[in-house]
């Protein structure tokens, strides 16, 4: 793969951090974006990958434009975007303050819209580009205790499809990746608690959460030229979660050696 230039948002941790590493290993030059509160973590990822970085609120109108400008000024072009920034609140819907609704939509939907449109304006000048939005199995299901997150990810899937249709004429492909359970800082408390986790893992045929690198591998494929006829697709990466129902109730203690992600070579 020849050297490409990519923006990754939500790059300080979890899936975004893994996407950054995977793209860097493939020789991609990176401009990484994360929220101001995550600036320290973002800077250390950027230093490790010799990447540019920008700590700013993706839901504010100027952030995406600044990221595009930085990528183009520093690396001369923009080929790919992994628009990945997202937040979630887990809470009883009757207790959820309106501020959480606004914050979730601000980052997950408004931020996604701003990042894709700003990047596409630059890509359209050159008649090519590829964008992958991070959706979720929550784009399709009413997952428990996260009504607003589910709605925001439903919107992300619809944005990805709509952008794919509208941006095809400019030579830009847009897809979404829809992860299920992934072992990240956002989920580690649940995954680490056997009482909580046994409930969730009983729904996952592969009987484990994904490693973030396994989501990143799909993002890399969708960005790559090999996916040249793949656009408007929402690709589930969920270990079989949404393929159907299992009635086997796994007890977390029943298996001494729970399955783990294989070690992937670069």
């Amino acid at each position, binding site marked *: 793969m020849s050297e490409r230039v990519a923006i990754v948002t939500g790059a300080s941790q979890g899936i975004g951090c893994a996407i950054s590493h995977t793209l860097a290993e493939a020789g991609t030059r990176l401009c990484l974006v994360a929220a101001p509160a995550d600036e320290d973590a973002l800077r250390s990822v950027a230093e490790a990958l010799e990447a540019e970085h920008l700590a700013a609120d993706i839901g504010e109108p100027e952030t995406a434009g600044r990221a595009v400008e930085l990528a183009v000024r520093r690396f001369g072009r923009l080929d790919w975007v992994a628009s990945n920034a997202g937040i979630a609140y887990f809470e009883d819907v009757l207790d959820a303050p309106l501020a959480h609704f606004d914050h979730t939509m601000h980052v997950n939907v408004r931020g996604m819209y701003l990042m894709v449109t700003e990047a596409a304006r630059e890509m359209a000048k050159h008649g090519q580009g590829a964008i992958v939005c991070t959706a979720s199995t929550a784009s399709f299901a009413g997952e428990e205790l996260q009504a607003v997150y589910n709605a925001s990810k439903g919107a992300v899937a619809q944005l990805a499809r709509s952008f794919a249709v509208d941006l095809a004429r400019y030579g830009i492909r847009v897809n979404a990746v829809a992860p299920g359970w992934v072992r990240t800082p956002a989920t580690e408390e649940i995954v680490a608690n056997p009482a909580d986790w046994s409930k969730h893992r009983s729904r996952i045929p592969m009987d484990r959460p994904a490693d973030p690198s396994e989501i990143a591998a799909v993002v890399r494929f969708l960005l790559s030229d090999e996916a040249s*006829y793949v656009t408007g697709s929402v*690709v589930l990466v969920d270990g079989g979660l949404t393929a159907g129902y299992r009635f086997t109730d796994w007890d977390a203690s029943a298996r001494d050696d729970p399955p783990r992600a294989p070690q992937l070579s670069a």
Partner: protein
Amino acid sequence: MSGRVEGKVALVTGAGTGIGRAVCVRLAEEGADVVVTSRTAANVAETRRLVAEACGKDPVALSVDVADRASVDAAVDEVVERFGRIDILSLNAGIELVHGPAVVETTDEEWERIFRVNMTGAFYACRAAIPHMPSGGSIVNMASINAFVAWENDAPYTATKGALMQFTRALALELAPQGIRVNAVCPGVIDTPLTDSFLDRSEDASALRADYAAASPLNRLGTAREVAHCVLFLASDEASFVTGTGLVVDGATTAR
């Protein structure tokens, strides 16, 4: 650089033309030991030649009729005898009723034939191969966007692809504990001999071809190789958490 499916044994059906042929070449390029199978001996021979050209290694090539259980079982036996296992099962054998009969005009023979090839053939191949697939194995069924959307005068084909998609999901659940992943690739309109068979019957082939292209916002048909890239991805360890999924490769045809 080592290939993305280096050293894996890949049994490919429907390998005589179009997508299946491109899958054989793509898997071979990335280091798989490909077993080329198709019903038509001449097509098998040509794919075999293309694979040898792509990877410098003469592949095993067999004439197999997926609609014939004994033929499928014999092929799997031969592969297992030769390689000891099957890592990748890429099932592409499929037919269309190109004359597009309305449901009330569809004969018993037509209905049974298309289900036998498109659905029962995949069942035969999976049933025979699964006992020989190790953890880390991957099954990739060639479904279609017709698994999700319907076209007029294509009810039997649409029904087989819907069935194949649901078979894929059910098998994914069943095989997850064994570490075998099962997915489908769901192409839109692809430039293959199967698509040509519709164009050939048309009064104005170039107008129909333009209509097919316009179905995608990219305003073109996909190529067999573009679909093969998707099969390679799902077959490889890069897709290690992807199971029970239909990867749509349709140039956004079904997104709008």
